[in-house]
């Protein structure tokens, strides 16, 4: 009988040191659950991280874990996966670690489509260094390092992911322990780089940063949970829908202005063309609801698998299996 696992099997003995109320607790719980759902043994799982609050996560996992250096987690995780493709490899990272100092490694990991699962905890602030703006902070954001407000536009993680030809992008809420485990599981099962952006709250330095969309009173109206093959419906009463209006997406109330349920778009994460996925991912909660769930999920060859396959195919053509055999097959001469 195949062994089954419980979330506790993935929890390390280390006491969790994040601030009480930090969104990271929620994601950690969701990850434990997701791993139990996946049923991959802890010893075949490696969790890699860079630096920052988010990157403490490996210490709380009863798996193999490597807490590395700032921004380089994606490169190190890539090396782990390519060297040992049998491992399930996760990368825990934050908006600063992943998109500022580690931006280059992030886009190249995504471009290569190496089969790792990136959990991008986006709280739009530097927490561990105590409150500087991050590359996802909104223009004008006031922080310790931007006392008069920032004068730069933020990255939008989905846009960057798609710009790097990303094949899997999902978004979850830190405290949503109901759907997040399922999304993380889907991310792990996806063959290729998966990016799960978690909308993360920093209770100390950026409390309530996502409240404009995630606040209890507004959440139903300002978010939409996308599901493959399902109508894009949202709202407290499930009476709102997304329709295509010329080149734009538009939120409508079903039954008003002549819109019926038939007009509402059906979500398809699997189409190759990322245009609509990008539109969905960029909805920001003002005119259109913030998209949650799996926005894009497209199959493509993975880097680690291709590296393996290339070795297999060259081995079929060449006979040398040891250095000596190779050297002797080359340009050699004998001295007697």
């Amino acid at each position, binding site marked *: 009988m195949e062994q089954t696992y419980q979330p506790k099997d993935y929890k390390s003995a280390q006491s969790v040191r994040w601030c009480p109320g930090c969104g990271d607790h929620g994601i950690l719980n969701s990850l434990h659950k997701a791993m139990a759902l996946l049923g991959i043994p802890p010893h075949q799982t490696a969790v890699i991280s860079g630096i920052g609050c988010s990157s403490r996560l490996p210490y709380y996992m009863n798996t193999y*874990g490597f807490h590395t250096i700032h921004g380089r987690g994606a490169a190190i995780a890539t*090396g782990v996966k*390519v060297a*040992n493709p049998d*491992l399930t490899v996760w990368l825990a990272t934050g908006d600063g670690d992943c998109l500022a100092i580690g931006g280059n490694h992030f886009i190249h990991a995504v471009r290569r489509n190496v089969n790792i699962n990136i959990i991008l905890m986006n709280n739009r602030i530097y927490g561990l260094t105590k409150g500087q703006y991050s590359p996802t902070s909104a223009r004008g954001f006031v922080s310790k390092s931007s006392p008069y407000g920032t004068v730069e536009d933020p990255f939008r993680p989905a846009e960057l992911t798609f710009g790097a030809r990303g094949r899997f992008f999902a978004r979850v809420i830190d405290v949503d322990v109901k759907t997040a485990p399922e999304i993380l599981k889907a991310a792990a099962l996806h063959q290729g780089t998966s990016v799960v952006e978690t909308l993360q709250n920093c209770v100390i330095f950026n409390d309530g940063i996502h409240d404009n969309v995630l606040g209890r009173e507004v959440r139903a109206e300002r978010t939409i949970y996308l599901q493959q093959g399902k109508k894009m419906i949202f709202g407290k009463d499930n009476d709102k829908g997304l329709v295509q209006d010329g080149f734009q997406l538009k939120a409508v109330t079903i039954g008003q202005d002549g819109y019926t349920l038939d007009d509402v778009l059906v979500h398809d994460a699997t189409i190759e063309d990322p245009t609509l996925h990008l539109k969905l991912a960029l909805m920001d909660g003002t005119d259109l609801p913030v998209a949650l769930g799996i926005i894009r999920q497209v199959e493509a060859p993975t880097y680690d698998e291709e590296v393996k396959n290339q070795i297999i195919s060259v*081995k079929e053509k060449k006979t040398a299996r040891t*250095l000596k055999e190779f050297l002797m097959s080359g340009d050699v001469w004998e001295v007697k």
Partner: protein
Amino acid sequence: MHDTTVKQLESVVIRFSGDSGDGMQLVGTLFSNLSAELGNEIITFPDYPAEIRAPRGSLSGVSGYQMQLGAHDIFTPGDKADVLVAMNPAALKVNAQFLKPDSVVIIDADSFLPEDLERAQFKTDHPFEELGLKSVQIVAASITQMCKNALEGVADNKQALKSRNIFALGLVCWLFNRPLQIVEKLLSEKFKKKPAVLEANLLVLQAGFNFGHNTHTTVSTYRIETTTHQPGFYTDVNGNKATAYGLIAAAEQAGLPLFLGSYPITPATDVMQELTLRKELGVKVMQTEDEIAGICTAIGAAFAGNLAATSTSGPGLALKSEAIGLAVIAEIPLVVIDVQRSGPSTGMPTKSEQTDLLQALYGRNGESPAVVMSAFSPTDCFDAAYWASKIALEHMTPVILLTDGYIANGSSAWRIPDMKDYPAITPPLVRPEMREGWTPYLRNPENLVRYWAIPGTQDFMHRIGGLEKDYKTGAISTDPDNHLKMVGIRQEKINRIADNLPLQEVGGDTDAEVLVVGWGGTYGHLSEAVSKVRKAGKKVAFTHFRFIQPLPKNTDEILRQYKKVLVVEQNTGQFAAYLRSKIDRFNPYQFNRVKGQPFVVARLVEEIEKLVNQ
């Protein structure tokens, strides 16, 4: 009058030189391979500009390939040339300083026209006089025209121009009594997919040889004795290839897969390119987005249980510093190959130096000891890379292996080794019975090495990282006394590697007053200089260091034994400074040159003799 008989020589220095597009590296390689097959000892030195194609005929675009061949004891590519092939006036001008007085200079007369001379900034139409080359034997051949003639009706003028280098090669083959069959075989392999080019090249090769034959009364020819090598199978390698092979051999001996993460950089790129060709041996190579990712993918691969390496040159080593620190504190096996080049910054990328030693030793934040070692010669890169891998794996530490552009590109004949002659490599892997009470930083009390639990191993799940850890549990710790202890432990772990290293050997006259000390890629030049001084009847001892951190255990004893110690380096005194810091009241003499060029043996001889006579 020149003596134009056949000269029987022990060794000869040949330099091919032309525009960087003239194919001088190719003919140089062909001629050295041919000579190696005939049983000569050879050391080569490709000397090329950083520009891929500088303006045609300009001084900055001159590309050269020098080699010394001989019967035995060839340690260097030679100081000055016996034969120079100069495809244009710029090549002649740049190389005039490297000529022996009665050397043979072959020029393409068709490219010594007034406009060509002007491009090379000659003021007169008499380049040899202008350069003061009075006694050289000039072979002015209309190479361009003869190539066109040879290829009439077979190939166009464009191909004829491209084949000039092969004509010169044919001529040099005649000069050295070399049969053409081997070159023809090498050319056939090289151009097997371009039959038209091959045909043209074979025709001009013969034409070049015939030209020499028909004019042989006007110039000396040479005959080189062949060598009696140690029996075995030989092939030709350069240092970068040998480095790549050393890594492969180590992975095979350790029973681990080999992974290289790297980013292209002159002069180290060939290590990556050679390894990426060896997929049939299962080697995994990633060309990453940058130098940092090169080492970081390697660190990931090492964590995952591979023999992992990254290859680079000085500027890349600077970028990798932080990640080397991670490998130091996490205690992960990693081989970092630094093919040194001239600096600082971009410096002179194609020129060689020994200026990264202190960067390798100290260029990191915190107390961050890593193993630092060096390779002596092109073929020695194999042994050095093997040792670097062995130490990294057995002592769970990053090892920085310093080679340099000179030995990386230089090549010589190499006896294909029998791996039975090499020590075993046994990484300290965890064993199932160690499960009880195991922690990730539990150490072997003898050598202080932690045990390696590779992800995928059941019941050894653990977390490691760049944060300071508790000596006992391996958990994160900021305890002041623990940190002090860990700083000491990491250094002591490196120090104890010396217990497993061969003792430093001294060659030459061990009872001499003067000891010459070197390290790394200057071995050939120093050996030759020391041997010349001794042949002149003077006593001198010589020791050359492979292991720098840690130093061999008898270093102190050796250095104190001699009245005068001369440390010779291609930097401003980095090894000398390091030795001073390690050995109480040690005060050596120094000879330092930082020109981006190999040492001149004659200059070394002068310096050593000065000290002996003093």
